[in-house]
């Protein structure tokens, strides 16, 4: 046998074999694998795109839309998005001499503009005086019904000696008004049966001087009375003080996202440090540290948010963002600390850690190589879920008036202002509310996606 007497042939290299199909897939690191999984999740990817879009909106937006969010456009208060913004150039206001106006019944003496609405009517036999009302809603009740509240705001009482006319100059908006003139009989009783109503469509007017001041008139061509000019453009409308909604939403995003991202980042970091300390040291230190964390958890969160916010105070001219940030960090860390401690305790007992220790790895290496990479996924997921709750907290506090100080816009404070005029100009509430909801939704879905991608054990049941 050749085994007994090895020949020369046995020591020569074997002939090269034909290469076989390689079945090895490229080796992926943990993060590459997570990214691959995340990319397959359309919901998470859309959310990621929304988050990036929001960041662009906040950081790049104000550079493109250079309008001061505190700037007031008094010509356009509470203007909904896409509203007409033409204005007629009119003569400067002059006092009304109450010339005779042809016609009968309640009628207009001149064209109704935002400068003034001039009403004229006829005498009524039993009228001691006339009460003038203005309403923004069409009259719902028949004139026989003597309901005063259905007439809108009372503008004034006119005595017939002063002439049967009334001029309204009270905060006129370019919308449709319903004017009611009700005769007042003996004993100050409103004679609702004899009520007269007129529907007045008010056009926006601006004097040439004002238009020139605001730079609405192009210098090249001659503009005169009767011409139309375009007022400043507000793509998303204005709020009740005439401030541009788009600019305010951008600056508001700055506040909301700053608090929403920085605060969780800081408190998760604090929680990681605290939790890993407790987990590593163990024993009595661990017990004490975690008991303290339990106490902090038991503090009624919102009450203490408000208390701490007041404690760190708002000086004059400050916006109150930093106090809110500190308060969030102080109250937010224990959840992460608990989680990280649990993770560390678990990983410490894993066999690969024992194996590494057996082979003589120093503690530093164990922490850097095994502990941190293995908790990072969980920490990242916690962070993503902490962001929406921080955004909520900011919005909540600003909403109840304990958040950022007034001139600074934040989505929460904008909602707070918008809710007061919800029925008349809904866009002032809807826009910031949509921004909050979409942001929170995006971070929630991204968090879900990250959890599925990063941590097999926490994968949600589908």
């Amino acid at each position: 046998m050749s085994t007994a007497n090895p020949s020369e042939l046995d020591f020569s290299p074997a002939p090269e074999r034909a290469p076989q199909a390689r079945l090895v897939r490229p080796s992926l690191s943990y993060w590459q694998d997570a990214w691959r999984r995340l990319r397959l999740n359309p919901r998470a990817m859309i959310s990621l795109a929304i988050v990036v879009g929001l960041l662009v909106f906040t950081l790049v937006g104000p550079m493109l839309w250079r309008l001061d969010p505190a700037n007031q456009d008094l010509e356009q208060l509470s203007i909904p998005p896409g509203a007409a913004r033409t204005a007629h150039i009119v003569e400067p206001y002059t006092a009304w001499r109450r010339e005779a106006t042809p016609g009968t019944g309640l009628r207009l003496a001149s064209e109704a503009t935002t400068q003034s609405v001039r009403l004229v009517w006829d005498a009524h036999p039993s009228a001691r005086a006339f009460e003038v009302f203005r309403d923004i809603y069409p009259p719902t009740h028949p004139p026989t019904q003597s309901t005063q509240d259905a007439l809108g705001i009372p503008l004034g009482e006119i005595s017939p000696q002063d002439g049967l006319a009334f001029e309204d100059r009270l905060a006129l908006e370019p919308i449709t008004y319903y004017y009611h003139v009700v005769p007042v009989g003996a004993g100050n009783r409103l004679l609702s049966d004899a009520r007269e109503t007129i529907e007045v469509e008010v056009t926006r007017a601006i004097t040439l001087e004002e238009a020139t001041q605001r730079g609405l008139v192009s210098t090249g061509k001659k503009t005169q009375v009767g011409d139309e000019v375009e007022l400043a453009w507000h793509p998303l409308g204005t709020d009740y003080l005439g401030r541009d909604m788009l600019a305010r939403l951008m600056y508001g995003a700055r506040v909301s996202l700053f608090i929403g991202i920085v605060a969780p980042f800081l408190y998760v970091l604090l929680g990681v440090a605290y939790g890993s300390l407790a987990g590593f040291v163990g024993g009595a230190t661990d017990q004490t540290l975690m008991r303290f964390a339990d106490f902090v958890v038991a503090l009624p969160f919102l009450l203490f948010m408000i208390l701490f916010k007041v404690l760190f105070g708002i000086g004059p001219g400050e916006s109150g963002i930093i106090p809110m940030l500190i308060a969030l960090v102080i109250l937010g860390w224990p959840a992460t600390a608990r989680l990280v401690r649990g993770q560390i305790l678990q990983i410490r007992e894993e066999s690969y850690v024992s194996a590494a220790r057996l082979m003589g790895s120093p503690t530093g290496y164990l922490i850097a190589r095994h502990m941190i990479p293995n908790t990072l996924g969980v920490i990242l997921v916690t962070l993503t879920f902490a962001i929406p709750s921080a955004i909520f907290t900011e919005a909540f506090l600003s909403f109840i008036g304990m958040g950022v100080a007034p001139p600074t816009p934040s989505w929460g404070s904008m909602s707070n202002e918008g809710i007061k005029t919800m029925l008349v100009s809904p866009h002032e509430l809807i826009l910031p509310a949509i921004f909050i909801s979409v942001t929170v939704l995006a971070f929630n879905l991204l968090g879900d996606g990250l959890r599925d991608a990063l941590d097999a054990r926490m994968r949600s049941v589908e």
Partner: protein
Amino acid sequence: MWRYTLKRLIQGLITVWFIATTTFFVMHFVPGDPLSDARATSEQIRENLEARYGLDKPLYQQYYIYLRNIASGDLGISFTQQNREVNDIIREHFPVSAALGVLAVVFAALGGILWGALTALFRNRMPDVVIMFLVVLGVSVPSFVFAALGQLSLVTLNDWLGVSVLPVAGWGSVQHLLVPALVLGLGTMAFLTRLMRSSMLEVTNADYVRTAKAKGLNATQIFIRHQLRNAILPVITVLGPAIATITTGGFVVELVFAIPGLGRFFVQSVQQLDYTVIMGTTVFYGGFLVFMVIAVDLVYGLIDPRVRVE
């Protein structure tokens, strides 16, 4: 069980002490005090007022008096509302917040269990998809938006029907309570639905369900007796913290619906630095929440014998 209860109660008391102490010191480090408004015009008046409220004593003595008063159930007199005791304020306004909160929790729990069970039953089919979409929406929309929407739909409804079916705001009857409570419970309901769904799905694959099936029980019986009863357990565990979130979260809903609850008083007292009202409400709320959580845990122990063994 008794040992466990006692231990939890002692822990709870220590927690309340911690809350009280934190509030006290945070309060006293806030710049300014309740007397730094127009009332204390001269040095003499200020001194008299300080003596009346015990603010002239050193801080540790104030702290001692404060703790002693809390222990005897006296939360002091309000600084800004003449001669009004904090106990009275709480007695008057807490039941309002509590009624709202309790109803909200009931709505949230019932809704969460119902929707969660439904989604698990119709897993990956139309009802599941629709409900889960609503759940994601429910978690993402802030409560004040729900409150505004709730109010808006009430206005529209009343306007449309021509009669006031449900009042839009205010307080006084059960009708006033319904919509605010529903609005307040929505967020928690969404959260509980999610929890209930995953716990239902887990239970569906459990051995005892397979055994029940093998024994030939019908599907309804298995669903009610085995799946539902077991799946509810995790929902009950989070009910304690949920009560906490709901009762303090009531601030916004109280604000929007003009409900005279405790929340408004708290915000007001913080703005006016009304020491006693702030400390009183915080300690009261803190204590309430701590013992709610303990109560829920103890009830849980009664329902599920497994947790009693600690």
